[in-house]
């Protein structure tokens, strides 16, 4: 019982928070993949730049909350510019070019950040430091806030995709991008805005997690690999699948780390992926169609 309360519950909570952040990243990847046909290798760098944008804003204003608003805007604008300048000319080309292009972008972003801010580990202090007793344990308030904030965020995204016209159009286009042409919408603008939105979400995840983790230029690389696993597990192109798989991986990651060292955790998660691929080659929610 003590073990349950003192060890397992906090770790579960941590896993949920981590899963939600992964979900934000994987959702962005899935939507961009469905819409533009590009698997965005630079997505992890957008996550990383969210944290650095936060560091800059906090340095100037001293306010974490202001950073939470400003960082997604900054990274979102950067995403929009990047999309319009580099991805737009590739719409009609083979997907392999998009893959290679975003790999190049990832290098530029990551090394650019390293040049400006250096390669050191940095920390962002949580905006509040208290803790709250809950279920016989005390939890840091910031972690509870994280859980609340990420739940609200995921709920808001869900509402956006099911209740708003813009959301419904994007969701339909993820399934079948060609239908956009028939709707009379401004396709390039939809693409750019969607890319900006996914960049903003990634940066928000980066900044929210920064007080719990550390901030360094490579932080995006580690996340993107997990996010790729999540996208594959969820079933390529399935938005709901991405979120479910994100929580599975988030929980697995934090529970495994109770019993294993980090590299064993990485290999164990990889093992999960292989087992799922053998049992369900299309992932949790992959759609039918031999030649999809």
């Amino acid at each position: 019982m003590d073990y349950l309360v003192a060890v397992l519950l906090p770790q579960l909570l941590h896993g949920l928070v981590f899963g939600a952040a992964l979900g934000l990243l994987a959702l962005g990847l899935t939507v961009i993949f469905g819409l533009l046909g590009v698997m965005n290798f630079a997505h992890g760098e957008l996550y990383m730049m969210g944290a650095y944008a936060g560091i800059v804003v906090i340095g100037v204003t001293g306010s974490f909350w202001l950073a939470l608003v400003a960082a997604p805007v900054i990274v979102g604008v950067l995403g929009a510019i990047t999309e319009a300048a580099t991805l737009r000319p590739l719409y009609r080309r083979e997907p392999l070019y998009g893959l290679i292009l975003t790999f190049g972008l990832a290098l530029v972003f990551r090394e650019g950040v390293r040049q400006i801010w250096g390669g050191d580990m940095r920390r962002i202090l949580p905006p509040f430091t208290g803790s709250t007793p809950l279920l016989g344990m005390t939890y840091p308030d910031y972690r509870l806030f994280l859980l609340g904030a990420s739940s609200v965020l995921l709920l808001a995204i869900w509402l956006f995709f099911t209740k708003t016209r813009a959301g419904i159009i994007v969701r339909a286009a993820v399934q079948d991008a060609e239908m956009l042409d028939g709707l009379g919408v401004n396709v390039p603008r939809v693409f750019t805005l969607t890319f900006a939105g996914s960049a903003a979400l990634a940066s928000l995840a980066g900044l929210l997690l920064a007080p719990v983790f550390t901030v360094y230029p490579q932080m995006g690389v580690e996340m993107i690999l997990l996010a790729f696993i999540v996208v594959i597990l969820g079933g390529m192109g399935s938005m709901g699948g991405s979120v479910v798989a994100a929580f599975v991986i988030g929980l697995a990651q934090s529970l495994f780390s109770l019993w294993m060292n980090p590299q064993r955790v990485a290999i164990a998660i990889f093992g999960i992926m292989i087992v799922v691929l053998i049992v369900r080659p299309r992932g949790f929610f992959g759609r039918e169609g031999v030649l999809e």
Partner: protein
Amino acid sequence: MSRVFGWRSAVAFAALAALPWLPGVPKYYLLLAFDALLFGAIAMSLDLLIGYTGLVSFGHAAFYGLGAYATAILLERGILSLWACLGFAIVVVGLYAAVVSYFATARRGIYFALLTLIFAEVVFTFFRYTQTFGGSDGIQGLPDALVFPGVAIDTPARKYYLVWVYLLLAYAVCRVLVTSHFGRVLVAIRENEDRARFLGYNVQKYKMLACMISALLTGLGGAIYPIRAAFATPDLMLWTESGEFIISVMIGGLGTLVGPIIGGVFFTLLRDKVSSYVDWYFIVIGVVLVVIVLFLPKGLLGLRRALGFGRWRATA
């Protein structure tokens, strides 16, 4: 055989063979030439997948690194025969490549890139944290390998000839493949995978075979690296290494054999110059990659052809 080797490639290989005989070539440049030709040969092997079959592997560093570790492990234990090292590398890389290619070709397109990357990261993590294989330091201070008992590969010139032979063999293999029926089917798969299936081709089998061949050639390249460098480290398996192979292919041009060799050589020389003067080397590389994709999607050879020096042919 004339179909495999035109007179131009014969002249090129003869010129490369003469390099160590040129007066006043410093040892350093012979070793740089080793790296350049090794990189070129691996880029060419990778282009079998990217340019011919339309599959982007982000995990070639794992094949390369596994080959290097295979040699390093034997040399470290006093098994100095070159042939033993190469044989061991073929077995290790072959087993790993069989598993990777099976899973990665089960689904289409992007999926291949993601799975090769994820598999490679697992291999990297394994070697990076396994102390038996030296952890993050890798295996250092290896002795020279022996071609035959008593004949050590100890001078820069001998090391250079090792890579020369490797390049020659790899080129011959690739050349036979792309001019064969097999190569023609690979191009058809790149062009239109669905249609190839409806014409009776088992596409996954072809893709797996292409992936295995490319992986084995890359693994052999990895296996000769510790003979020149006297070490194998986990950094050889890092995903940026896979990225550098892709960059070499892109610089030289997709769907050709000579292009990626030139691309690999060019890239190695660029890295040698840029990384010693400029510490934002990766930014330069990233920008080069973006510019090539946007403006020169067929690479430097494509540029030459776009200017009117012969038509771009996908099949040769």
